[in-house]
């Protein structure tokens, strides 16, 4: 299977990924990052085969339906997965299923890259504090936006470029070798468990230990009623109702007290 991209194609895709993963396009990047769709579309444009790109991406999307990142931890980076898997699939005339087999492990690796960004960003904090103490608004803004953005670009562009330009064939062979082996299993397990991090952080941040029973109530409702496939909005309504009744019942006291 002869798989190559031109320098420009590889570079353009790498830049696109960096734009998303640096989050420099604002909150709109959330859905670009959680979903492979926009990346798949861009790859299609760049490679001149939108139709095939979209078909492959749609298959990948199904794997990531419903991912959320409460408190910061997304168990995989679908957009990075798509950035690598879609070109490989197009060039290699692979089936959507084959593309998924590439996208999943790559997306898992990508999620470690994204977390790594958090460490690197720490370097920007010193200058933020300095500018803030000096009351320097312009400097503060610079250190908040420009430094982290540059860090992300320096991190993602080369890596993705290399992976695409030199790595595509390697990746597809590596991926087919590790197949359903232990590495994939480990990556999957870590991904599945990492979701707990963000949730624990938010619970901690909410901080009211006396309200924890409502966490457990919800947890076991979602377990007990799993077979009923209850829609998230409906759960949110239940949460709101419990909150209102709870406040009603406790406020009365306070009012009277």
């Amino acid at each position, binding site marked *: 299977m002869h798989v190559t991209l031109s320098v420009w194609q590889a570079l353009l895709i790498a830049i696109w990924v960096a734009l998303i993963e640096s*989050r420099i396009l604002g*909150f*709109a990047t*959330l*859905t670009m990052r959680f*979903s492979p769709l926009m990346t798949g579309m861009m790859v299609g444009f760049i490679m001149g085969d*939108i139709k095939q790109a*979209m*078909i492959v*991406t*749609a298959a990948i999307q199904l794997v990531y339906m419903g991912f*959320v990142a*409460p408190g*910061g931890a997304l168990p995989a980076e679908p957009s990075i997965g798509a950035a690598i898997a879609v070109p490989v699939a197009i060039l290699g005339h692979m089936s959507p299923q084959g593309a998924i087999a590439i996208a999943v492990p790559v997306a898992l690796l990508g999620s470690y890259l994204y*977390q790594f960004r*958090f*460490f690197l*960003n*720490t370097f920007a*904090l010193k200058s933020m*504090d300095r*500018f*803030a*103490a000096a*009351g320097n*608004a312009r400097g503060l803004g610079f250190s*908040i936006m420009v*430094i*982290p953005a540059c860090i992300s670009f320096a991190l993602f562009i080369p890596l993705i470029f290399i992976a695409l330009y030199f790595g595509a064939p390697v990746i597809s062979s590596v991926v087919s070798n590790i197949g359903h082996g*232990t590495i994939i*299993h480990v990556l999957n*397990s*870590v991904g*599945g*468990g*990492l*979701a*707990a991090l963000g949730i*624990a*952080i*938010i*619970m*901690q*941040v*909410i901080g*009211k230990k006396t*309200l924890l029973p*409502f*966490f457990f109530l*919800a*947890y*076991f409702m979602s*377990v007990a009623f799993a077979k009923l496939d209850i829609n*998230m909005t409906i759960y*949110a309504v239940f949460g*709101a109702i419990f*909150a209102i009744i709870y*406040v009603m019942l406790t*406020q009365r006291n*306070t009012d009277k007290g």
Partner: protein
Amino acid sequence: MSETADIQATNDEAVQEDTPKRIPQPDKITNKDLMKSWFGWWWANEVPHTFDRMLAPSFCFGLIPSLKKLYKDHDELAKAFQRHLLFFNTQATWGGGTLTGVTISLEEARAKAMANGEEAISEDMINNTKVGLMGPLAGIGDSIDSGTVQYIFIAIFLPFAQKGNFLGALLPFLCFSIATFIYGYYLTKMGYTLGRNAAKEIMTGGRMAGIIDGLGVMGLYMMGILAGQYITVKSYLKFDINQKTFDVQKILDTIMPGMLPLLTVVLLYLYFQKQGLKITRGLLYLTGALIVLSIFYII
């Protein structure tokens, strides 16, 4: 709320005395300022994400234009910048939008009072309000925006993508981005109005506690739902005794379905409870444990 106080204490390097001094009159905050601040937060949102401050810098970034209008006094401006660089994390629209509004109105009340030489809302009060609301609103916002709104748009337009049409990618992106931007802005304005009305109450205690409690109930409830639906930890351990295979996950399901995911999140919670919110370490330990356990196919 002791743990959030901890966070604050940890980050708060320069403890400021709070005797309000006389400063120049602040400019009036207009809708345009609110839009600027909302846009600033929206734009910076997760750019400077770190484990120790989380999204505080972005929040501060959004406030810059408003704070400059409120604090003509250079020292007070610097202090305001500093207090909004402390640990902060919330979801973008429901949390960040609302709190951008609330915070600006509280800062405005503070600036005005200082200019008039009246008793001002203290830095602590501003911080406690922000910190008390950020968690619950994050829980709610993540469920609604990321967990529901986003996937609704994707689900609706997915058939396009499946037929190879690029609208299947563009439309959900546009719908989500535009919808959230718009209601985020309205939440900002609502937060600002709420904050104005609440400013007095906040100073005296009052109903704020009830609101925070209620949002806390809902936030924790949604975290429970997300935990039940998105954390997937199960045991792959099987062993044979006497030609009979024991499937550990099945046994655990007999005891209590959903045990391992719950255990994971509760252990992490307790770790943070004991050790303080040391996220990086939590991440490392968790990853380490997951790797080790999964290499041996225990999970």
